[in-house]
């Protein structure tokens, strides 16, 4: 049994596909077989360009739906109604979304309105005996679980860095269609008074970067060492709540249970103690590196490579050496 898969395409205001969507499409084309992969593009002022359609197609989308609504698709109630009608129209048995707060809000609504079973923060998904079985880590990355969706419709929110994106051999150009949604009065009860998208930093996006350098209180507010290391590695910059509360860096850089959850290939903590709230957002990282002057810092309990030392000497030295080795 294979059913079509619907994929929500997160995109920037400038019309670029967000990186983790590539992972969703790769996973979707594996799971859908010949049943088809339907990509949903919310037309919230931005149309999918020809290059975008080609990109989605190369990653396995067989259909691209331009979703047009008579209300703001940034509102989760509006998005949920649009996705519900698209699930109906495509006959999809699975909706894949990137695991973000907005998408989880839409998923929660769809769970109520459609009876779907939802798994959030999944890091893998397979079809086993006709059921979708997702894997995920829980309790700050200390446990791994697998979880089957027992309802006929599954919604899975996938964590970035879970799947290696891959182009599909001999993919045909996707069919483009328009899907118009008439939004209910109910979904209009919330007004989006203001929405400000943060400008791209020039560095990779924290949530999906494969290398992240995070700074904590130990930096004493001097993030230049953190940024220098991130830049020689082509990585993203993150922070602890202490650093964001102090205003050393924007709140969007906060890694942890109440910030961004990340699972990069490499996490480097610079002057970060490794408090449980912070660990909850990074402990599932591939390789964990920590630089801390306190040998008893809890982060060393989970570090693959730890340096007990002063970050202001160790980190610039490491950055210079990497620059030299990479020539």
């Amino acid at each position, binding site marked *: 049994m294979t059913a079509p898969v619907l994929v929500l395409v997160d995109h920037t205001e400038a019309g670029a596909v967000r990186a983790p969507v590539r992972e969703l499409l790769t996973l979707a084309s594996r799971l859908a077989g010949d049943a088809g992969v339907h990509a949903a593009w919310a037309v919230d002022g931005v149309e999918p360009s020809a290059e975008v359609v080609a990109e989605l197609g190369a990653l396995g989308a067989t259909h691209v739906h331009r979703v047009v609504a008579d209300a703001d698709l940034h509102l989760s109630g509006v998005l949920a109604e649009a996705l519900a009608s698209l699930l109906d129209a495509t006959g999809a048995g699975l909706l894949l979304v990137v695991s973000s707060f907005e998408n989880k809000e839409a998923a929660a609504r769809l769970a109520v309105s459609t009876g779907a079973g939802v798994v959030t923060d999944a890091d893998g998904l397979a079809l086993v005996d006709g059921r979708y079985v997702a894997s995920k880590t829980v309790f700050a990355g200390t446990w791994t679980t697998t979880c089957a969706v027992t309802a006929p419709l599954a919604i899975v929110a996938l964590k970035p860095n879970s799947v290696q994106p891959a182009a599909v051999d001999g993919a045909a150009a996707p069919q483009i269609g328009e899907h118009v949604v008439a939004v209910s009065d109910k979904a209009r009860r919330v007004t989006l008074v203001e929405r400000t998208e943060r400008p791209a930093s020039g560095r990779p996006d924290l949530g999906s970067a494969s290398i992240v350098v995070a700074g904590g209180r130990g930096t004493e507010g001097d993030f230049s060492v953190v940024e220098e290391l991130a830049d020689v590695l082509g990585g993203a910059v993150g922070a602890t709540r202490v650093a964001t*509360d102090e205003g050393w860096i924007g709140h*969007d850089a906060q890694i942890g249970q109440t910030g961004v959850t990340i699972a990069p290939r490499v996490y480097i903590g610079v002057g970060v103690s490794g408090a449980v709230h912070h660990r909850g957002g990074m402990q599932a990282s591939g390789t964990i590196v920590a630089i801390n002057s306190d040998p008893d810092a809890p982060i060393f309990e989970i570090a693959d490579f730890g340096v007990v030392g002063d970050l202001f000497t160790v980190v610039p030295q490491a950055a210079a050496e990497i620059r030299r080795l990479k020539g």
Partner: protein
Amino acid sequence: MSGVSAPGPVSAAPGTGGNVPRVRIVVCVKHVPDIQSERALGPDGRVVRDGGDGTINELDENAVEAALALVEASEGSVVALTVGPDDAADAVRRGLQLGADEAVHVVDDAIAGSDVIGTARVLAAAIRHLDAQEHVDLVITGMAGLDGLTSLLPTALAELLDLPALPLAAELTVEGGTVRVRRNLDHASEVLEAALPALVSVTDQANEPRYPNFKGIMAARKKPITTLTLADLEVDASRVGAQGARTEVLEAAARPPRDNRVLVQDTGDAGVRLAAYLVDNQLV
């Protein structure tokens, strides 16, 4: 931003001429294993709740704080509500100690094994029950349960109650029957607005939760905790608990500790060794 003494961004409009409308707020608080403790899943895939080291979900203290601040600035009452086994009464008791006026604990063996939607159904029924007694203007939840971190519950609950949802408030104001929220998402910041009644979830940025004082703890002893069952709420037991769940945990295992861990003391070349580690292991 969350300086201890700074007034929190959660505020109600000052009353005009003493003519302040009463607000009745229900706060949903969850009892979870302490995140500082060893947490575990049982063979059934459920969170092990062996008593003792359970606590109120820390983030729900921000929800209680938001409710109390709103009621203090105008007038009204706060009801702390929890769904969970016997131990979960601790979560609403904490709410009473902090200053909530009433506490409701829904407990029923049939609830065990509920998924988020099952839990939301029970909470929704309890809130309807409270609303029938006296109109509820606002439901406030935490941003996430620190046990599962799904963050699905608030929006699901709003959908079941047919209320507008304003999740993830970093700032919250209620003014003239309108609730306004500022929220910070991964890529954007938003301001949302809706007319009451509504549901809001608050983040840890919204305020600095108070500690219960002696007076609060003594006063809480006199406040009863109302216990309700599924029958009291007329909830169909087959739609909650493990039977009503749409997901089933198949396997759960503690991750093995990381092996081949290296800890070096800097003696002058640790930066170079760190670089070599990353390059030799083809990590960069």
